[in-house]
């Protein structure tokens, strides 16, 4: 049997983080977007045990302020894509307002750390979201284009092709064939 799962990274990470903080009896306050304020000084041994256990979940403590900000940018972008109705202004404006930095600064910082531009990252994430929606099979391509604020299906298709090198229909065909093969096994 094979089941398909949709999960929310933020919720999962937050839950894991909370559990671990509780477990290691660290007094804390979760600020959101991967930011935790430690309220009391913790013993070094206990703290390293905490970080080691978090590492098992793929969670690491970012020491660099730059990386923290990049993570914040990424989170904000995700939020923007999943809730397009919240975004009424251009994404650059939205980001600089939300993160209280000039867009130029954010843009440079992001490129340095991630090897890609914010614009490109937004496109990648949008296409990924479109893929996710296509795979779930609940929406038609037209509906997906509308949901993701594309002017037309053609626009979505073109962007999809630009990012992935293949057309949405080829993508869907490949994924379906893979599923068929997986089912046969």
């Amino acid at each position, binding site marked *: 049997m094979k089941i398909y799962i949709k999960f929310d990274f933020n919720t999962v990470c937050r839950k894991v983080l909370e559990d671990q903080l509780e477990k290691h009896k660290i007094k804390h306050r979760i600020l959101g977007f991967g930011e935790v304020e430690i309220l009391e000084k913790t013993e070094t041994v206990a703290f390293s045990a905490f970080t080691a256990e978090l590492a098992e979940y793929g969670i690491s403590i970012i020491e660099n302020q730059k990386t923290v900000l990049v993570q914040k940018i990424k989170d904000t972008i995700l939020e923007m894509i999943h809730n397009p109705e919240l975004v009424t202004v251009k994404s650059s404006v939205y980001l600089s307002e939300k993160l209280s930095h000039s867009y130029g600064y954010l843009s440079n910082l992001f490129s340095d750390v991630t090897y890609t531009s914010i614009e490109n990252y937004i496109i990648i994430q949008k296409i990924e979201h479109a893929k996710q929606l296509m795979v779930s099979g609940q929406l038609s391509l037209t509906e997906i284009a509308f949901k993701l604020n594309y002017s037309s*299906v*053609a626009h979505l*298709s*073109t962007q*999809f*092709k*630009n990012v992935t090198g293949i*057309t949405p*229909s*080829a993508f869907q065909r490949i994924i379906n064939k893979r599923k068929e093969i997986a089912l046969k096994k």
Partner: protein
Amino acid sequence: MKLHAFYKSPTFLKSVFVVSIFAIFFISAVTFKHINLLNNSSKWVTHSYEVNLELERLFSYLKDSETGQRGFLITKDSTFLEPYLHAKEKIDRSFKIVKSYTKDNPLQENNIRKLEFYINKRQNYLSKTLHMSLNRSLSDEQLKEKMIIGKLTMDSVRSHINEMILLEKKNLIARELSYKDTIKITPIFVYITLLITLVLISISYIRINKDLEKMQVSNNRLKLLNESSSLAEMVGNFGSWQQDITTGVFTFSDNIYRLLGCEPQSFKKGQDDFIKFVHPEDRHTFEGLTSEQIDNKNLPAFTYRVTTKDKKLRYFRTTGRIVTNKMGNDLLIGTTSDVTDEVLSSLSLEQQNLELEASNKELLAFNYVASHDLQEPLRKIQTFISRLSDKEYDKLSDNGKEYINRILSSAERMRILIDDLLQYSRANKTEKVFEKVNLNDLLENAKVDLAQSIEEKSAVIEHESLPKMTVIPFQIQQLFINLIGNSLKYSKDNVPPNIKISCQKVTATEETQIPKNTKDKFYKITFEDNGIGFEQEYAEKIFILFNRLHNKNDYAGTGIGLAICKKIVENHRGFIFAKGEPNIGATFTIYLADN
């Protein structure tokens, strides 16, 4: 109509025959009866005459006896007694005869009895008178008295005899009358019967005559048919045979013998004789199949080799099946044909196919070489040159820079050529996977593929809804890409390309362009642009591989794109046509069979 049908039917003749037989029987029966009747009648006549004669004789004897008695009485001479006594005997005898004659007639018997009484009475009187006269006791008076009595008695006898004779005569007349009556109808009756029989026989004769004529005609036709079928067998190189299922005896047509190089009907008609000609390697199969033919009621067509009498190897094909003839007998009929030419040509065709297949494979292998092995070194040349021009460009002289650029563009052109050739050979690939797809999706994909170019030229593509069809998706998508790409490439400077794609379902007969006059349905998809167009005289040439209408410096291209289109359309059993007008635009029409 019914009557006519009866006349035509074979029962008619049988009925006529039966009726005639009955008529003849009837006539003979009637004739026999009449002859019998005639015989009887003449007997009766004789009989009557005999009765009358005997009666008269009896009367004369009576008279004799009386005369004798009278003579004696008068003369007393005993010589007169002699005739008396003599007559007495004769009377008795004669009476007995009469009696016997009239036995069968009650009326005459009655008369006889009376006559007997009178005769007896008369005899008594005669003898009494005679007795008295002998005793001399007879007086004249007594005599007179006796004589008178005798006379009276004699008179009654006479009248009685006369009466009898009369009666007999009356009988005779009645008999003659009835005889005449019978005799009178008989000939008419016989005549009528004879006449009817004659008529019937005449009709039968006509009928038989007609049947004979018909038989003659059908015999002639049959002969002709036999001749023509025998001729057909000779021309068509085949022969026919029959096998009687009950006896197992074979009958071969003349041409079977000829096919085997023998004189017609020159060997015994049997399977064993035929099988001698069958090639030893095929003999087993032949026997296997033919031995089952009766049980299976069918001999499936099969081919085998034979060696003819003149030692030539020929291929024969035999087939047969069971039929039931009009008489209800089962016959196995079949044909055997000489298929040597067909077999040989199919063998050579097979050989050619194999060669073709091999050459196709070679071509595919060549394509692979072109695609892969040729691409590899070219790609490396290009990469090395690109590295050279990236890193060492500044160190080169102006000439060197020029050469590098020329090499770059030549190599690029070669790459495009190889790519296009590869695409063309892929369109030729033998394995074709047909799928039912929505052509609109393929068109969208094509547009996505060309998105960059469309955007650069601000092209507008309008299209009608396309159908779902069973096609090779990659190829149709390629077709769309090539056609739209063609329109984009050959667009007018400073005029945004406008490509109109329309679609309609048509029937082959309605479309003059389709070289097919069937009712097959096609989808006609038209690509119309506002580009530079072309002279109509080139409309067919542009689909030929490597054919270009423009200088390669004006328009980059290999002359393969439209050849690929044609190939793809042909793969879908379709047609592609181009129509152009310089500076107005070009129209490409494709017909794809709707299946």
